[in-house]
């Protein structure tokens, strides 16, 4: 049987021959694993070592991975980016709101970033914006445990206020296909609050999709500076009907029911806001 020979011919300069892996017939192979040692592909190329009986059982160190299963990717989801026209019956102006999140990483370990923001003159502060940066670890088949920091800033009583918080959260898909995001925020001075949101998609057609959205937040301590009472702060319930022109690009219309409770509602009233309102929304859901 002819020897099986691998030739690697460099087209530019002269030819370099790879090692001749001589094989006997199947029957005569005496099998031996090559002890790799410093035996890189290069040294095989350079020398004509005694014939091996087993071709390349050892992994060559400078070979690429056969599959690219550790690729890192960047994902950004603009779940809510919307305009909220003013309601006729009161003097409120038009408002806006966004909810963006995304990650960079692989299957298990991801760097998450999130931002929510709104201008809501009738409801709470003039604007309320937060940004989170979190490390996330994929666990239990469906969930990301997330730990990191959050910065929140509000314009309230004509002044800008800002606070930093530590975040411990969990995000994932729970039974019945609800996307759940829950987080605990701990102020630097120890004040604790939390937020929970749930969304779920209902397919009316393949592209016309109704998203239900529920969000609530609560605080252990009253933080008047941030229009936050202790206890339940607010509930938000919305329905947004989107049309996926492409998967990545879907304009929507819908409504949002927002209601403050308890101490928070009182604070909102003191500021001249309305603790309970229904807003029409129109916006864009997109990801890339």
């Amino acid at each position: 049987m002819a020897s099986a020979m691998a030739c690697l011919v460099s087209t530019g300069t002269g030819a370099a021959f790879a090692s001749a892996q001589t094989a006997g017939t199947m029957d005569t192979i005496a099998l031996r694993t090559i002890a790799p040692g410093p035996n890189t592909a290069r040294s095989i190329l350079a020398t004509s070592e005694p014939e091996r009986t087993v071709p390349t059982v050892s992994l060559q160190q400078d070979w690429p991975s056969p599959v690219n299963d550790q690729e890192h990717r960047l994902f950004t989801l603009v779940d809510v980016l919307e305009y909220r026209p003013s309601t006729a019956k009161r003097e409120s102006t038009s408002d806006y709101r966004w909810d963006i999140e995304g990650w960079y990483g692989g299957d298990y370990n991801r760097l998450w970033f999130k931002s929510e923001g709104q201008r809501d003159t009738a409801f709470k502060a003039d604007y309320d914006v937060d940004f989170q940066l979190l490390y996330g670890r994929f666990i239990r088949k469906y969930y990301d445990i997330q730990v990191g920091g959050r910065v929140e800033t509000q314009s309230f009583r004509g002044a800008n206020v800002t606070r930093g918080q530590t975040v411990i959260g969990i995000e994932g898909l729970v039974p019945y296909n609800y996307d759940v995001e829950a987080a605990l925020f701990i102020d630097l001075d120890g004040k604790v609050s939390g937020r929970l949101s749930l969304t779920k998609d209902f397919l009316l057609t393949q592209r016309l999709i109704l998203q239900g959205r529920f969000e609530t937040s609560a605080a252990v301590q009253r933080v008047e500076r941030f229009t936050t009472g202790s206890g339940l702060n607010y509930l938000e319930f919305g329905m947004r009907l989107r049309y996926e022109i492409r998967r990545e690009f879907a304009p929507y219309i819908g409504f949002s029911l927002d209601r403050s409770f308890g101490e928070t509602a009182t604070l909102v009233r003191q500021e001249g806001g309305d603790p309970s309102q229904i807003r029409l929304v129109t916006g864009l859901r997109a990801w890339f």
Partner: protein
Amino acid sequence: MPNTFGPISRRLLLKRAGALGLLTAMQHLLLACRINSLIPSALAGTQPAMLSGEVIDLDIGEYRFTVGDRSAPAMTINGTIPGPLIRLKEGQEATLRVTNRLAESTSIHWHGILLKPDMDGVPGVSFGGIAPGTTFIYRFPVQQSGTYWYHSHSGGQELQGMYAPMIVDPIEPDPFQYDREYVVMLSDWTVESPETVLSNLKKLPGYYNFQRRTLGQFFEDASRMGWWPALQDYLMWDQMRMDPTDFADVTGYTFTYLLNGVSPAANWTGLFRPGEKVRLRFINAAAMTFFDVHIPDLKMTVVQADGQNVQPVIVDEFRMGVAETFDVIVELPEDRAYTIFAETMDRSGYARGTLAPRAGITAAVPPRRPRPVRTMADMGMPMEHGGMGGMKDPHVSGMQMPGMEPSSDTPHGQEMPHMHGIQEMPGMKADDQRRSKIPGIEPVKHGPDDHGTGNQMIAEYSRNMMHEPGRGLEGSSRRVLLYTDLKSLTPYPDQREPEREIELHVTGNMDRYMWSFDGETYSESQDPIRFRYGERLRLTLVNDTMMEHPLHLHGMWMQLENGTGAYLPRKHTVIVKPAERVSVAITADAPGRWAFHCHLLLHMEAGMFRVVEVSDNTHGGHS
């Protein structure tokens, strides 16, 4: 059948060797291959190519490929999609010089060909790849015959057009007659780059599925099965966080399905003279697509599977997992056209061609069937004896034909009554020496290991389903090829009972488009699966996912343990259905490191890949 498959006549042999019929046929094929293909500049200087001989040169280059009115960059072998047909002769020494004119590394893997590992062409397993601007010379003795193919094993190049047929003519002529032959190579093509497709799936696993359940469909189901059962069914799937319409990760939304490189609209046509028998060499070279193939009004006689002769089986339809090949013979007595119809398993599209007595005539294209729905059986739920609660609708529950009587297998599988879903094997006749027990024919409970976060669910009970045609084909009035139909034409030499068993679970997490074995990707588990040189072992594959996976072992045959006794058929690629347990017997006669992976390209790329190492250094070799 016997008259069809009698010994070949000298005259026919000469006729074939004279190549008149064959070469004419091949030219039709190759001409048709390029009807819609590359931009003219890519074609300049190339001729329709069938390559054979002692030394064959292949050039890997980048061109643009046009389907319809859309074109995109393609990776090609000698400038065409598919690449040139390589025709070898059993017993020859093949020398294939592959020159890489791409800007990136490439490789060619000879799918199904037995050779030394350093000729197998898997970067990172058997060699380092072919660097840009270099030529790699593959050289190996050709020790087998049949229909095979070759393709890139580097990144997404296969999806971009790097695949082509390979035929090895036998020394002893095949024991069946035909007047003409065609390669029918099925594939999928998209203008999106492989990276984009995989990225879309990683970000939104249902990205390409536009056949999901909707409100409208709920009303339809409710009116058919009743409100409460329909609601229960929808809620059950929601509760499990699974999508019962997930039959293909990538669909006709982005894919155009090609037959010999030609779109359905362009309609590849193979010519015949009425009265001829034509051998069709089907090769599924798709990256991500299973096809269900049939030719309306024609019976197909399957004579080869994965390049290996099998006892002829007459069927109406067969399912092709990615990378499988089936050779069929069709008799064409009439002066009319026939449509070769290869519908995708998810029914989102099809590849199509025509067999016609004259160019330009066509036959009707059959209507597409509704897309199937996953069932409790796909989840490995214990449902064998009606433990299904309220699920009584066969469309939803997938309960298999309860009224069918157990039937015995007819010799050679011919004229077998339609018998999907019955328990064919357990009550086997003791007097039939061809029968053997099918491992896993009785449901096996899953062990306590749920394979971690990389695996979404487990098949609580897995069982062998080789006697079932597969989801979407059950209940068909057509005779569909079953894996239990495949019987080797002659017994293979190694008739030892496997000495030991390796069980490997096929796993994944659809929520993140993660794919793995035993819950771990290749990167997470680079330790090879060790076979002892010379041993006969049983590899048992258990599918814990809700998708069909075509699993491919390099370097050695897998013999389907499908109950055919001494006639276990050889396969290089084996479909494992959801919740199925499939055992293959392997003779570990090929020392070295070999790839074992899912042949859905993006599953492999996502990590459903292992190295199998055959050596005798562990635990004392045995022969």
